[in-house]
């Protein structure tokens, strides 16, 4: 029971991480290798928010979401758009650009902040105890925020005009253009949205991690696993995949050994590639986004 609860909480975080990653694939058919580095930037933002500016968590979260949206949007406009304009078959070149961006951002962090492991104390103290199992308030809050985020993204995709445009571009790019949708705007918004999504775990996970230049390696592994599990570009699949990965990891750590925990993501990836490469999301919905 305790494991299941912990697994669902971390699963909600993985789901948010996965959705931000799979969204870009669903719309642009590219993998964003710099995704983990967006997490890293958000982690630094949280660190400075707490230690230098001494802001409350809610303000840090909102500021990080806004800043990371702008950073994602800006990266698309400044680095990816020029490549797309030059090269008609831009999928592979853009993936290479994100790889370069990953290296550049890691080194930039190293130059600016050094390789130190910067940590912060818990945002909130105390835990909720019911019988013989307990959950810290901080994790409960993390769960609540992540679930609300997932609900928000689902509403955005299914109930708004922007969501309709995102779906249209993901399903038939030419037809979307012919309908009056500006794909350049959609791509930039998509990167912005992805940055916004990854900023949430980036901030909320900080008390359990450190901010350091390569901290993004952890979330991007989870993002890969969740995205593969759910089906590339499948948002519903990524949500399910996030929860399953979270529970599987926690159970493996609890019943086998904490050492195998990070191996679970790899195992999930290998199993899904061998047995169900389309991803489980296709069982739920043929629609990719939402």
């Amino acid at each position, binding site marked *: 029971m305790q494991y299941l609860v912990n697994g669902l909480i971390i699963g909600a975080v993985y789901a948010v991480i996965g959705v931000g990653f799979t969204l870009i694939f669903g719309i642009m058919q590219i993998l964003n290798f710099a995704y983990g580095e967006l997490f890293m930037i958000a982690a630094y933002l949280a660190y400075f928010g707490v230690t230098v500016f001494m802001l409350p968590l809610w303000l840090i979260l909102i500021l990080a979401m806004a800043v990371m949206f702008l950073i994602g949007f800006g990266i698309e406009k400044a680095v990816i758009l020029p490549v797309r304009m030059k090269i008609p078959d831009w999928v592979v070149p853009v993936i290479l650009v994100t790889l370069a961006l990953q290296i550049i951002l890691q080194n930039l962090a190293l130059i600016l902040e050094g390789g130190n492991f910067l940590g912060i104390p818990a945002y909130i103290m105390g835990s909720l105890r019911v019988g013989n199992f307990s959950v810290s308030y901080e994790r409960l809050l993390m769960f609540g925020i992540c679930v609300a985020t997932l609900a928000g993204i689902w509403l955005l995709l299914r109930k708004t*005009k922007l969501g*309709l*445009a995102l*779906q*249209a571009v993901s*399903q*038939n790019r*030419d*037809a*979307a*253009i*012919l*309908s*009056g*949708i*500006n*794909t350049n705007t959609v791509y930039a918004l998509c990167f912005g949205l992805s940055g916004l999504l990854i900023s949430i775990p980036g901030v909320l996970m900080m008390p359990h991690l450190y901010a350091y230049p390569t901290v993004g390696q952890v979330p991007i592994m989870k993002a890969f696993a969740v995205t593969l599990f759910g089906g590339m570009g499948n948002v519903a699949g990524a949500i399910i995949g996030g929860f399953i990965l979270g529970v599987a990891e926690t159970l493996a750590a609890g019943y086998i050994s904490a050492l195998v925990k990070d191996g679970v993501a790899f195992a999930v990836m290998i199993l899904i590639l061998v047995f169900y490469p389309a991803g489980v999301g296709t069982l739920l919905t*043929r*629609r*990719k986004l939402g």
Partner: protein
Amino acid sequence: MANELLRVEELSTSYGDLRALWGVSLEVRENEIVALLGGNGAGKSTSLRCIAGLHPVQSGTVLFEGRDLRAVKPHRRIREGLVLIPEERGIFPMMSVEENLKVGGFTIREKAGLETALAWVYGLFPVLRARRWQPAGSLSGGEQQMLSIGKGLVSQPKLLMLDELSLGLAPVLVLKLLDLLKEIHANGVTLVLVDQNVKKILSFCHRGYVFENGRIVLEGKAADLAADPRTRKAYLGR
């Protein structure tokens, strides 16, 4: 004579090193129905894609209502009243019929305007209303073609260009679609049609252009083209 709506002058383009169009010129006047004919690979789809902005124009000009379309980004052309229904059916298979139509009306800002446009399209295609919550991909071929036409009509275009209207459809369905197009034309929409079914299409259109190897080799009144042996030859020539 009616006003000129579309004018294409000396249009040329290629796919990589492969030249696809060699100076195509054509015009479409308001309220006309114009056919683009020619065998497979003759350059009809490429011409339409250049006009819509999906494929880059290498030389030549495209004017819509006298305005050079180079100044109008591809996604803005629907706002000018220029709509293409592409060859591979411009629909979104995983969206519902209604969502597809809403994307077709993406440029309509007011909710009331969109409702009116949807009602007009549902009036033309009652089967779409019956299937409005179904995923577009689950419709039959004929229904999907009706949806792609309906989706193109939501924005109430001045010029509707239809690539391969009858591809893969049963003859009865084609006749039904042509009837509907007649009604759409009566609503004031100018039509450009591409179709392999030369006889049927020429009996329906006012004028036509015959493409061969990326050039226009023949043009004229539909009745004259239908009678001209060279029209048939253009199809069999390849």
